[in-house]
């Protein structure tokens, strides 16, 4: 286990380093932020002074080195636009995004797992076929369009739910949360469901495939033959084996939920990191873009690491196979 952990940690560190170089060089290639930030009337001396104060006159390597030095001090540079710490700006917006993403994941499991199990247990029934047809539609619908339709139906026509912002928030542990107030929950439902829809379809398909495999397997037949209640066989024996691929995929998908939150946040005016990055890209606010991407990369690497470790605990063959090879 130790060597497995060490190897994975080393890999993760390398990915982080490689991505930081890629992101930095990539962002460096984007048009000149000075043109966006400085008014055309500014004198040459003014321009020169601002360029120097932002450190844009130094070479790419010098800028990268000072960036990495800053990162180890927890400093990703100051936002060109907001004039405050870029990482602070992102961490300030992060709870809103995480709240949305976690709600979406919870929704996708609450809705997807039972439906997928039903479809797996009765694959040829009308119900099973309808669930699968529904999941194809769910896969096909572009997130942003579903968001528009949700707003149109529930906010514009029915007027049941609000369509913009986070609503009333409560401060717990120094962070503002929406899901603890009734108004906040009402604001959360539409965006969370919008973000969850694609994952619901995914969970349905994975669960159904896993259930069909499990029900056809020897251990399930043996358990039934032994006289265990079918209910217990499905809920304990089969479900456990279904959960392994589900944990992996959902863990990996959490990152993509954060990424797709960019779309949902834009539609529902949810004040999270996604909205921030879209705004930052349009004004070429380099420190914020770099900091956002690095936070996302770190998150992905961590998620991959956690999934791998969880996986190796759930299925010892992975760990042993990794250690001997």
């Amino acid at each position, binding site marked *: 286990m130790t060597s497995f952990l060490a190897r994975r940690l080393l890999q993760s560190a390398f*990915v982080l380093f*490689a991505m930081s170089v890629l*992101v930095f060089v*990539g*962002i460096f*290639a*984007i048009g000149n932020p000075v043109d966006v930030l400085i008014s055309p009337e500014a004198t040459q001396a003014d321009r020169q002074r601002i360029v120097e104060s932002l450190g844009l006159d130094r070479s790419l390597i010098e800028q990268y080195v000072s960036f990495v030095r800053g990162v180890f001090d927890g400093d990703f540079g100051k936002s060109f636009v907001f004039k405050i710490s870029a990482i602070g700006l992102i961490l300030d917006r992060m709870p809103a995004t995480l709240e949305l993403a976690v709600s979406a994941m919870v929704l996708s499991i609450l809705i997807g797992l039972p439906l997928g199990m039903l479809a797996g247990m009765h694959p040829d029934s009308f119900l099973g076929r309808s669930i699968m047809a529904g999941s*194809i*539609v769910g*896969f*096909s*619908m*572009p*997130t*942003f*369009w579903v968001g*528009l*339709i949700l*707003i*149109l139906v529930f*906010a*514009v*026509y029915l007027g049941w739910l609000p*369509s913009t912002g986070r609503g009333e928030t409560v401060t717990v542990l120094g962070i503002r949360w929406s899901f603890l107030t009734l108004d906040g929950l009402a604001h959360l439902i539409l965006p969370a469901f919008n973000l969850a829809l694609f994952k619901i379809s995914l969970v349905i398909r994975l669960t159904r495939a896993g259930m069909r495999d499990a029900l056809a397997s020897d251990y399930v037949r043996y358990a039934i033959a032994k006289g265990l209640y079918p209910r217990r066989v499905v809920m304990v024996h089969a479900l456990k084996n279904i959960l392994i691929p589900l944990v992996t995929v959902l863990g*990996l998908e959490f*990152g*993509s939920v954060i*990424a*797709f939150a*960019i*779309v949902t946040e*834009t*539609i529902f005016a949810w004040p999270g990191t996604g909205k921030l*990055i*879209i705004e930052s*890209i*349009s004004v070429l606010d380099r420190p914020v*873009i770099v900091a956002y*991407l690095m936070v*996302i*990369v770190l998150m*992905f690497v961590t998620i*991959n690491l956690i999934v791998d470790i969880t996986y190796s605990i759930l299925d010892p063959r992975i760990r042993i196979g990794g250690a001997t090879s």
Partner: protein
Amino acid sequence: MNRPAEVKQPVVPVERPAALSTEARAGTVKSAVEGGADTPFRQALREFVANPFAVFGAVLLTLLVFGAIFAEALAPTNPYDLTKLDLMDALQPPGTQNMDGSVTFLLGTDGQGRDMLSAMLYGLRTSILVGVSSGVIALCVGATIGIVAAFFGGWIDSFVMRIVDLQLSFPSILVAMVLLALLGQGVDKIILALVIVQWAYYARTVRSAALVERSKEYVEAAICLGIGRTPVMFRHMLRNCLPPLIVIATVQVGSAISLEATLSFLGLGLPVTKPSLGLLISNGFAFLMSGKYWISLYPGVLLLVTIIAINLVGDHLRDILNPRLKR
């Protein structure tokens, strides 16, 4: 796409080995699919036709492609002819009647008095053009890289697969967004971004199929006969990797169209002068709150129908071409 042509293909004499007879036409997926008059293809076609959903999807897809190609002839008006636009026509609800009771704008007009039906047909063309061309280029790039990795193995293989794994661990929308932020707007730019996003899927698929083929005797035999590496890879092995490649290509074109629409909606994709369905939906977003639903709704329905049609076809192709399900 071009379904009737499949039937008209001349039947290749059976006594010739299939590998040789179809060789001349190998290279693109389309010709390989249509040209293979041998039994596996016919069998697949028969299975495909047996499924009503798949046939429905295929017919729908054919109609949509037809509509997109002949948009000029089919559209009631040219939505981008600025001289024909009249602001008096702006924001007409669908089916608004003229003085004499006739209907000019079947699906209403947008904020500039543009006929929505016409704009949608033109938009569909842009969407399909971007989706298909990025898919085809990504397929060529990805398949080449994948098969080379599988053929040579060793450090080339592990190097390529590391990059593929790294890229696939990031969601495509994020990668595409960053790329478009770097590249700027334009049809060529978005196609490039989509190719970079998609090639890894093809590379991974082709590599895993090619690894199986690599260890088979016919590859060994071909190498022993002194046939060069390139023909062995691209004439012999690639053909046997086609089934999973066809499935992934169908699915990827659908997701490319969806991704392009999403990026355009965020204002990152296409320029305003060449709106795809995504940009049309985005334009309608501003009017949505005041209940003028048609500007966003109908392009969205068209987009959805297109993607569902592609997914229906892709889903059943996967069932047919997946040997694991045939046990």
